């Protein structure tokens, strides 16, 4: 039996939260952002390099950690404006539960919509990225 909850914790999320492809603090980066969920202690650092390479250090639940890794993958090479558009689409998707072809692998998180308290877990890395991009703009 595969319940909604188990669907949410589907292969891609489990895989990316356990073995992130974009994890770790890079030697070089141009800006960083921080996200924290005071309620549960989830924490994420996002490191941004001009040109759009993003890495993260995510400490927390599977949804947040997978979201961070899938985000890093999705925004690679994107301009800040493109990132903003993607974030808006992502926010919409996790709120509505409706997949969006433009979001690619990020759609793995569509199931979060049914777990309302967890939506902010999925969004936390994006908050951190936003902070990094703002810092990047000031410094750039």
């Amino acid at each position, binding site marked *: 039996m595969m*319940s*909604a*909850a*188990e669907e*949410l*914790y589907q292969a891609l999320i*489990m895989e990316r939260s*356990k073995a992130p492809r974009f994890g770790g603090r890079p030697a070089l980066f141009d800006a960083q952002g921080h996200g924290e969920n*005071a*309620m*549960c*202690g*989830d*924490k994420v650092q996002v490191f941004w390099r001009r040109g759009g390479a993003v890495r993260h250090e995510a*400490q*927390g*639940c*599977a*949804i947040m950690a997978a979201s961070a890794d899938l985000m890093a993958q999705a925004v690679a090479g994107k301009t800040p404006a493109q990132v903003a558009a993607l974030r808006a689409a992502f926010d919409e998707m996790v709120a509505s539960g409706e997949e969006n072809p433009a979001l690619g692998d990020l759609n793995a998180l569509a199931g979060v919509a049914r*777990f309302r*308290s*967890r939506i902010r*877990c999925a969004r936390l890395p994006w908050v951190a990225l936003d902070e990094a991009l703002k810092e990047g703009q000031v410094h750039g």
Partner: protein
Amino acid sequence: MSAREFNLDEIRKDFPILAQQVHGRALVFLDSAASAQKPRAVIEAMTHVMEAQYANVHRGLHWMSERTSDAYEAARDKVAAFLNARAREEIVFTRNATESINLVAYTYARTALRPGDAVVVSQMEHHANLVPWQILRDAHGVELRIAKITDAGEIDWESLESCFADGKVKLLACTHMSNVLGSYTPAERLAAFAHARGARILLDGCQAIVHRAVDVQAIDADFYVFSGHKLYGPTGIGVLYAKRELLDAMPPFMAGGEMIESVSYERATWAPPPHRFEAGTPAIIETIGLGAAIDYVRAIGFEAIAAHERALTEHGLKMLAGIEGVRVLGAAQDRGGVLSFTMPDAHAHDIATLLDRQGIAVRAGHHCAEPLMGRMGVSATARASFALYTTREEVDALGEGLLRIRRIFR
């Protein structure tokens, strides 16, 4: 107080919500330490007030007001008897335990303590018994000291000794039962310890009051606080017990109707306790509801409740010990029905979400005891907590749920 027989099936019928389904599954409510469900007796007491006997209290000379005032003040008598207070005047009604503690910090501590004095709290306090003292420290120039706990989650008496060593401590504010570790603290010993060193003691009884008979005179507590909503009562009502002589000397906290003796445009004089501390229209309906909750709990009796919860806790500990990788926080000798735990890989939030889909409500996070998380070396835990209506089968359901989660996270 004659104890009615402890019949769990009957007791569960007293709580209408327990028949609810969640996500198509029977509700397994293991979050009572955050707030307990309400028995019909409480719901009916509140409904009765609103349907048959309601008016503002203390102010009216008419029948509805007199009768409502009686019911309101009768609840004070019930609380006084429940805590074995010396006098009904020692019972102040607040919104919740948080307000009770803040009231003491704003009134007692800002007058009885002087800059240079110190307050001690333990490492396992709820934010409600930590942050008000931080604010007091910053506003009033007293020192705040943190007494350590052992890895088992008990008071570290050596640390407590050293906090008191220089004789500056005037108040010890300590939980009577940790909402995270389940540890009971030895309230009588703590009170004797504080008193021997010239300090007063405030006990945060939010959790303890739910599971055990509390006798403030036997403890010799100076202040004792709890919330109605964890004791099967309504929200919006809390209790501050304080020794009469302390209340007598305390200035008011909030000002308004009911708490004054007389008022001119220039100045006001204060009513005696407890009314001095109950400004404005009180939580009338809720106070009467709390009285009904106390009646309910006393009718079952704490002996039966404690025995039931002890059995559940032992069963729960055994169950958790059987699941590979699960770590239970705290191992106090004297512990109650609150089990906080972690699992490898599965974050507390993931555990709570996955259990919820099986109809099982547990809490996940720092449980308003964020610094304690650091002390115990975790960032968050899942917590299952038991009430008088919790069954062994529910504890087993939790075990099965955790095994499923292990399979997902393996």
